[in-house]
């Protein structure tokens, strides 16, 4: 929701004490800066530690006190990619990529027309439809996972990546409809009508009037759908096995099959988190829009 949508607070400061000093908004606030930096480093510490440990050798990783300045090595990454262990991480990584990318595309294909029918040329009772979509997100996955499991088992869809793709589409579609609707609601209706009066055809209208508003929304929606699908564990754990298992499933089995190798666990965590870290850092503002279902723009 844009700033204009939010009601201005009624509270006004009472002019009881006049002071000459005024907070200069351009001035650096050193105290806040120091505090923010300390907290930022504190929160990032586990991530930084994970990355650092991934580049350490196993003996250096498992010391107390920690060997922060131990020499760096790519050993753990080599091992993760199967140099000595023989466990191949590529199938789960490819499965994850397939599940995330294809489900995101499917979500967009279904969500954009739906959002169009809810925002630009709204159907009757469109608010009810919108809240129906949201209400399906309130239903935890655990309440539906057993029938899905039984269905997949009886129809031979168990351990099939395409079934997982359909489930991820269903998981993300309500979020995507909400987000896309809130973006498409910003399409200027007067411009739409003017374009029609001028005889522009549908393709033209979509390209010139709708697309400029919709593109940032599509980007934000894709980012969120990709992240949620990439991260998902419960459905993947229940519905896939050796063939269609995704990276998170692989990761949960990694420790038990490899014994405990700290540096390798960290290397695996880094590799599997990398796509999300890159996408999320690259599109931080999109992340906010997506997480709030498009309510914050």
């Amino acid at each position, binding site marked *: 929701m844009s700033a204009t949508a939010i009601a201005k607070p009624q509270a006004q400061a009472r002019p009881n004490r006049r002071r000459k000093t005024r907070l200069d908004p351009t001035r650096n606030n050193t105290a806040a800066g120091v505090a923010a930096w300390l907290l930022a480093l504190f929160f990032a510490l586990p991530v930084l530690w994970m990355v650092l440990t991934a580049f350490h050798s196993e003996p250096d990783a498992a*010391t107390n006190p920690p060997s922060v300045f131990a020499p760096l090595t790519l050993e753990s990454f080599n091992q993760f990619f199967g140099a000595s262990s023989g466990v191949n991480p590529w199938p789960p990584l490819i499965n994850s990529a397939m599940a995330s990318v294809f489900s995101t595309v499917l979500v967009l294909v279904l969500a954009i027309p739906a959002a169009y029918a809810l925002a630009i040329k709204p159907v009757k009772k469109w608010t009810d439809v919108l809240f129906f979509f949201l209400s399906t997100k309130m239903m935890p996955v*655990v*309440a539906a996972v057993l029938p899905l499991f039984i269905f997949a088992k009886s129809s031979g869809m168990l351990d099939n990546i395409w079934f997982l793709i359909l489930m991820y589409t269903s998981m993300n579609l309500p979020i995507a409809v909400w987000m896309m609707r809130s973006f498409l609601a910003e399409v200027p209706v007067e411009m739409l009508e003017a374009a029609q009066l001028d005889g522009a055809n549908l393709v033209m209208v979509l390209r010139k009037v709708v697309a400029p508003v919709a593109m940032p929304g599509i980007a934000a929606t894709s980012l969120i759908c990709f992240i949620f699908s990439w991260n998902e564990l419960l459905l993947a754990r229940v519905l896939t096995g050796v063939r269609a298992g995704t990276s*998170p499933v692989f990761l949960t089995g990694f*420790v038990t099959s490899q014994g405990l190798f700290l540096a390798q666990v960290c290397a695996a965590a880094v590799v599997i988190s990398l796509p999300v870290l890159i996408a999320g850092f690259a599109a931080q503002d999109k*992340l906010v829009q997506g997480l709030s279902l498009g309510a914050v723009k």
Partner: protein
Amino acid sequence: MSTTATPVAGRRLRPANLLKPTTRERAADWARRAPLLPALIFVIITTQIPFVVTIVVSFMDWNALKPTETGFAGLQNYVEVLSNSDFRQAIFVTIILTVSVVLACLLLGLGLALLLNQKFFGRGLARTLLIAPFLVVPVAAALVWKHAILNPTFGLINGVLTWFGQLVGNPNPPQLDLLSTHPLLAVIMSLVWQWTPFMMLILLAGLQSRPGDVIEAAQMDGATGWQVFQHITLPHLRQYLELGGLLGAIYIVQNFDAVFTLTSGGLGTANLPYAVYQTFYFANEYGTASAAGVIVVIGSIVVATFALRSVFTLFKKEAAR
């Protein structure tokens, strides 16, 4: 596009004897609905039908390992869930986990958002660092917490304790083993760490959408920082706090990854999603698992009623533009 105005105008001008919608109007209505239908039908098939099946199964006596004993069970599964101490514990854990994580994340997120809203050197980089926990795949984050941070022999926490001990000349500093002594606290810590950035991002966006002119006017009039916070910032942030809190609650209620990875649901940390998973996946008790699933949904509906109300407020304001 050209059909937009036609049905409305037609309806208004139509004489009384033609009140039944014409074929053409009906076609226009369907043309309006058509783009919506694929998504709607897909969601109904993939979410509502499984849920109805879950409700049906929750009234059945069904264990996959005993196919001959399948039958109607009435409320037996619900009685079992609510009287079984493991399930009751799971309900309790779910509530504790959700409430404590959401509250802690909101408070920390608010503090961080207020700090990040100030101008200081390297603010963008600090913000990026703060988002990092949220961008680590949850399973990976849980594994790192379990093995690289909380591990009693060479985890980072004990490593730092040893290091401090050596600095102050204590060769045997206290060592923690949170995963064994306070497993639920360990789960809460890792979740707070992971979800605080989420709250921070939403609240920061809220802070930045504050009306600048009002704040400036208040400052001109001599309002103190605390007065501005209390009378302008907080009322303005209220709906963002609600939105963040309730979205967070929806996600945390369903959390499975952290419990599964950190403790495997052991030592009294199994929440309802984990208990349901275990009941049907390992114990094959389909009926009981479904009853527990239905109970999770009822709990979520209670939370969701509040969530929907809050989202609806934001939504109405937007619709009223």
